[in-house]
């Protein structure tokens, strides 16, 4: 009997919760949303500047993540392991990263600033993680590493940490332009059961609250990944975070390094052009 009641209650509570979310985040009806979906870009105004958002963040959460990162970031160990992996010989051709890129792959200093970028062979956007796997497969004759695995993250993090403190210089000129546009459309497109887009939260309502969480501004979103996230208790990549957001929006998740996620990464990194790379980051 009590089981039946609890099921009934759940059925009642769920639509109420959905209505609450849509109610707090703009009173958007289904008919309005239908006209705005598709390839058109919705016109949204930025809710507040990054400086103002930061002020709010400090008011709500203080600076404890910054302090924790100063005391010791668990992702620092991955950088040390990545350095060892760069010197390790793997694959059928008897090569390591160091045999092309110098000792400890130090010639790659500054290379991470231009990623993600257009690649003619791929006919798409090349991200750093994909580039490492392509190198392993084609140049070294080794098996490509699984995405989000320890070794893959360690190598990506090590190569990116070589360009720490350098400004991001992502280019969207020439052949990269259509992929940037696709990423922008994906960022502004409403999809999923809850009819959200990325931009609704991170442009229009950035700095306000969704339930008890402060919604972050889309500036400085891409300059500190891969980073250690306290919720995961692990280091993860930007694409893992994308997929987490998509799960909350009730969207079908695309696989890692699929075209959709790579275009999105290009769009988000272009926003951060000129900011300095600081890996590994630490987030809540």
């Amino acid at each position, binding site marked *: 009997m009590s089981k039946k009641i609890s099921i009934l209650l759940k059925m009642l509570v769920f639509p109420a919760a959905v209505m609450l979310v849509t109610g707090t985040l703009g009173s958007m009806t289904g008919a309005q949303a239908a006209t705005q979906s598709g390839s058109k870009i919705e016109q949204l105004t930025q809710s507040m500047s990054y400086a103002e958002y930061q002020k709010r963040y400090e008011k709500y959460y203080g600076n404890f993540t910054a302090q924790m990162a100063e005391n010791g970031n668990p992702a620092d160990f991955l950088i040390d*392991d990545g350095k060892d992996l760069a010197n390790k010989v793997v694959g059928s051709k008897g090569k390591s990263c160091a045999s092309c890129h110098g000792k400890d792959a130090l010639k790659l200093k500054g290379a991470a600033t231009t990623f993600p970028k257009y690649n003619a062979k791929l006919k798409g956007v090349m991200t750093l993680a994909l580039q490492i796997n392509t190198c392993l497969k084609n140049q070294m004759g080794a098996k490509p590493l699984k995405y989000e695995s*320890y070794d893959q993250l360690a190598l990506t993090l090590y190569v990116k940490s070589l360009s720490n403190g350098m400004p991001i210089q992502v280019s969207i000129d020439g052949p990269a332009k259509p992929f940037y546009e696709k990423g922008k459309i994906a960022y502004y497109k409403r999809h999923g059961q809850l009819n959200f887009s990325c931009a609704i939260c991170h442009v229009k309502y950035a700095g306000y609250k969704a339930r008890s969480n402060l919604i972050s501004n889309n500036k400085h979103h891409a300059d500190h990944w891969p980073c250690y996230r306290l919720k995961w208790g692990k280091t993860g990549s930007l694409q893992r975070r994308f997929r987490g957001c998509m799960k909350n929006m009730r969207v079908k998740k695309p696989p890692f390094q699929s075209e959709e996620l790579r275009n999105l990464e290009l769009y988000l990194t272009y926003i951060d052009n000129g900011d300095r790379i600081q890996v590994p980051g630490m987030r809540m």
Partner: protein
Amino acid sequence: MPQGIGKIKIRLPRTVRKGQIITVKTLIIHPMETGLRKNKKTKKKIPAYYINDVSVYYGDQLITHENWSIAVSANPFMSFDLKVDKAAPLKIVWKDIKGGIYQKTVQIEPR
């Protein structure tokens, strides 16, 4: 089993004077599995695997001994204050319930 278990970082101030009270900061990589979680796909319980015993030695002397339980987070961070009165090694030992022993020694040399 996740990689990197038992990697340790110990941070001290750059210069230490005799009689000074310093803060020692330590970090160890460990999953700290509680034994209460389930694997979502196989529906089986993940066995407990956590650090339950920490001791700190300054020279030959045992300074502090701690009993940890499942409430401590993954990758635990620990810091404590220490009065420097001699030049001696600082040894920290972590023990987990599967018999793993992780330790690191740093030399404290006051000016």
